[in-house]
């Protein structure tokens, strides 16, 4: 498994029929293997940004490069293989009748078949600690189980860049800790959208704050979270009693 750098420049996007730009000139460089947290208030454009990374929203303005691939219509298929996106709502991510089929869906689309596909599915589920769920129906799993399987559905495509939109939402503390262990163990470049600031601090050395569709801060997570004025300005709040300088 390899990992790829990400480069975004002057990304602008306005939803059809809207007046306000959801993304208003995003510039971002992420090196291979880096784990970056994407922070920002509700409606700041995080999900919109994430949707751009595997071409789910058409590029209106600006450029995105993943590894040596430039985002374009021709490269879309390869880009979608390299970028594994785990969406905010796991119910959207899981749509096949069984966990096995859901994890197999991506690689099967890429032409993997037969015993190789079976092996890949089993291995990937083991990797995320969900081996026992293989024959279950995905929509009857608990929130934490769904999240694991959702991650497995993209890991099975051996992506170079993992993009996760609010992976900790709805997880209990143990589920959250297991997710942390899993993400830290993965070699891929990771872009993690989250409202959970202690989570960001724990696993992402670097954070980017997006507000109003722009990057308003980019630096070491510990420093950003220690800047109370910056956080307050962008509606970010640490949990009561949490001191980022003392973790």
């Amino acid at each position: 498994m390899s990992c790829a750098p990400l480069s975004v420049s002057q990304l602008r996007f306005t939803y059809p029929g809207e007046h306000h730009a959801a993304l208003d000139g995003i510039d971002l460089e992420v090196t291979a293997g880096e784990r970056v947290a994407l922070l920002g208030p509700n409606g700041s454009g995080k999900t919109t940004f994430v949707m751009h990374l595997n071409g789910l929203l058409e590029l209106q303005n600006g450029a995105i490069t993943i590894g040596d691939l430039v985002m374009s219509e021709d490269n879309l298929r390869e880009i979608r293989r390299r970028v594994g996106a785990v969406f905010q709502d796991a119910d959207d991510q899981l749509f096949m009748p069984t966990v096995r089929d859901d994890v197999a869906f991506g690689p099967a689309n890429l032409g993997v078949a037969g015993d190789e596909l079976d092996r890949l599915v089993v291995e990937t589920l083991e990797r995320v600690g969900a081996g026992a769920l293989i024959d279950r129906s995905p929509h009857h799993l608990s929130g934490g189980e769904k999240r694991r399987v959702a991650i497995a559905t993209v890991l099975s495509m051996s992506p170079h860049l993992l993009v996760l939109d609010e992976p900790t939402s709805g997880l209990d503390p143990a589920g959250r800790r297991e997710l942390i262990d899993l993400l830290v163990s993965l070699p891929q470049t990771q872009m993690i959208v989250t409202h959970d600031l202690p989570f960001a601090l724990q696993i992402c050395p670097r954070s980017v704050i997006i507000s109003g569709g722009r990057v308003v801060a980019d630096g070491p997570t510990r420093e950003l979270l220690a800047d109370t004025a910056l956080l307050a300005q962008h509606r970010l709040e640490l949990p009561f009693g949490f001191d980022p300088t003392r973790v």
Partner: protein
Amino acid sequence: MSGAHAHGSAVDSLFVEAESAVHGLAPEAKLVALVGFVVAAALTPRTSVWAFGVYAVAIWLVVFVSHVPVRVVLRRLAVIVPFVIFAVLIPFIGGGEQTQVLGVSLSVDGLWAMWNILAKASIGATASIVLSATTRVPDVLTGLTRLRVPRVLVAIIAFMMRYLDLLVRQLGRMRTSMTARCHDPRWLWQVKPIASSAGALFVRSYERGERVHQAMLARGYTGTMPTLDRRPATAVDWSRAASLPLVAVVTLIVAVVL
């Protein structure tokens, strides 16, 4: 949310968990057996009363082998009640030759028609109940694919099942939130919020559909569902499953020839 989980899915709820020879058969073999059996029963002349006896014995044998509780099968047979009601009316309204039963004049043709509907509906329904109780929906879909049913068609059925489930749960959540806000529609003039929530339900489902489609695109979907076939039916599966329609076809032939 957890409440909806506890109720399980509307779709998988027909499956009865058990270890049996019927559960273990490959789904495509079961599908073919079901169709063969039901078609044979449907083609049987209604006057061959004994033939329906054979069908009933055969399908109930399968029920016993499948370990599906008898009361479950009987309860599910309630789906044919509308047919039953319709059928028992026929002898009263039918014309032609009449016969006296307990002092009531009934049409002979009507009685035969009633028998025909009751016998075929209950045998067909019992067979379908056995299939649905011993085969999970995903397996039925796999079976259909292996039987060369066009993949697009199978995908449509699969998504219909999936969305039906999400829709029912979505509706459940909306009802809960309405009830939590003290809305308790008991009378017709109180249903307006339910009616307008149908609109919201549609919009939500539509948006969900969009998001699922995007999730599929993100994983390399280009318009055709990948084949995920595993463990196709073996000769043993086929021969075991064939026993039911075979009995039915032989019965049918005898019934027609006699």
